[in-house]
């Protein structure tokens, strides 16, 4: 399957996570952009359209929830998957209020992240139709 047309934005300040994750997603044929902060993510989305976003909640200065909220102010359709290290993170329900497509826990296998991504993209495609 050719996924090169699908552009994923990976937002996380921990490069030890984004490096292997982006490498793996690229190995599955996707185009991957990495933003180390919420501010960088907003800048990238404003400059070029992305198909789906992986958003970490735990980031300095602008956390994931605030970034999602700000993105929704100008883009209400792009699917966002939350990344969290904590299963019982209270901020997940907060982020849900702004519309998210799923939650990927850092302890899980990357394969689970890929399944979430494919499902979100399918739903988005159907909604577009």
């Amino acid at each position, binding site marked *: 399957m050719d996924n090169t047309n699908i552009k994923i934005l990976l937002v996380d300040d921990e490069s*030890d996570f984004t*490096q*292997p994750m982006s*490498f793996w997603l690229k190995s599955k044929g996707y185009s991957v952009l990495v933003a180390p902060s919420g501010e960088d993510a907003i800048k990238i989305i404003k400059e070029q359209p992305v198909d789906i976003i992986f958003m970490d909640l*735990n*980031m*300095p*200065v602008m*956390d994931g929830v605030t970034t999602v909220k700000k993105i929704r102010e100008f883009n209400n359709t792009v699917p966002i998957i939350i990344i969290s290290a904590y299963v019982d993170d*209270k*901020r997940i329900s907060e982020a849900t209020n702004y519309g998210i497509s799923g939650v990927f826990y850092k302890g899980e296998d990357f394969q689970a992240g890929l399944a979430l991504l494919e499902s979100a993209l399918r739903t988005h495609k159907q909604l577009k139709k």
Partner: protein
Amino acid sequence: MESSPFIIYVTAAVVGIVIAILLTYIARLSAQAKINADKKAKKQNYLSENILSDADIKKTLYEEINEALASSARAQEVTNRISDIFAQEVQKRIGIKEQEISKKYETVIKEKSINEEIAWKKYKKVLAEKKSTDAVIRSIAEGLIVVDSKGKVIMMNPAAQRLLGASGKDKIGKPISENLKEEQLISLVKTSKDEENKEIELVSQEDETKKVIRASSAVIESEDGETVGMVSVLSDITKQRELDRMKSAFVASVSHELRTPLVAIEKSISLILDRTTGPITENQEQFLSIAQRNLKRLTHLINDLLDLSKLEAGKMSFSPAPDSVEKIIDESIEGLFTWANTKSISIQRNISSGLPEVNVDHNRIVQVLVNLIGNAIKFTPHNGVITVSAGLSAEGDSIEISVKDTGIGIPPEHLDKVFDKFYQVSERSVTDITGTGIGLSIAKEIVQWHGGKIWAESEKGMGAKFTFTLPLRK
């Protein structure tokens, strides 16, 4: 005309006699008037000075009226009539007065009985409240002891009796120090305001088992601020203690078990990374480096957990020796320069000259500083500044070392909690460089072992300042 002189003489004599008689009569009248006036005055005085009986009044009236009417029969009749009217009038007035008095008395009695009824109702209400409070105190699981200002037990609930293996009846009204076993309790009674919670170990008389009791005491003050006694709440924390001990033993054992495979993985990766096993690609190197870095992070976490369990169990070994604060700070900063440079953060030092040496475990204090400076680097954005300062405390009895950053800061409500194990400020974690959330707990334990204090100051968005003290040798 011979008889004329005689007549004149006789006439003169008669006139002389008449004049003499008249003078005598006048003298007698004036004497009688004086006597009457004296009598009247005397009677007036008597009347005004004495409270007269009815008979006296009647008699006096008789006399007065008789005098006035010169004792004729009519006068007697009038006198009797007046006396009767007077007597009736007096009787009537007495009757009215009596009625007034009894009316007033009735009102007073009525008011009194109403007040008594209210007081009784209040008493019954207070009694019911007291009974319900007593029932609550009796049934609470925590032990409760109240002592007066002289140390005598005023109240002791059944839970306290159970915990102390004592009967309340034996103790109430007696000084708390009466039995040997209560010696520990004297210390709890003497608890100072700084030390509101105490843990005391008791050997129960009944089952001879050791109990650990936590006593939370508070001074009871009257409305005018006078100390009237002390109330202590006793909780049996024997099981909690045992669980804590088991948890520490578990963490220590698991951490040891984890370290062995970690070392194996770390060594194997190192062998590949340093090309001992042959050439590797750029990607292989990139990901093996990440693996190695995170293995170090995991090792750090396990070491922290081990340290904390040792510190909590009092099994951490310390080797204190006289040391230079400047040397400790320099060594701590040195190991973190590379990391700070990756974020273009400058670490500045501001150390007072001529500081005396401190008696500390060098490696442990370096560990504290690495934790604090590491946290500062983690939460300071690019191009920030971290200042490590050291100087003599205001009292001159210790050295104060602080680490200040220009990072995101800590909200004031979280300041006293950042030293709690695994504590996280909601928006983001305030953890140490390893992200375990126990670095600050370890730092606190180490500083406290040295007899020092550690605290945090911050305003959200204005950076944070962590300070700890190291006491000077006396």
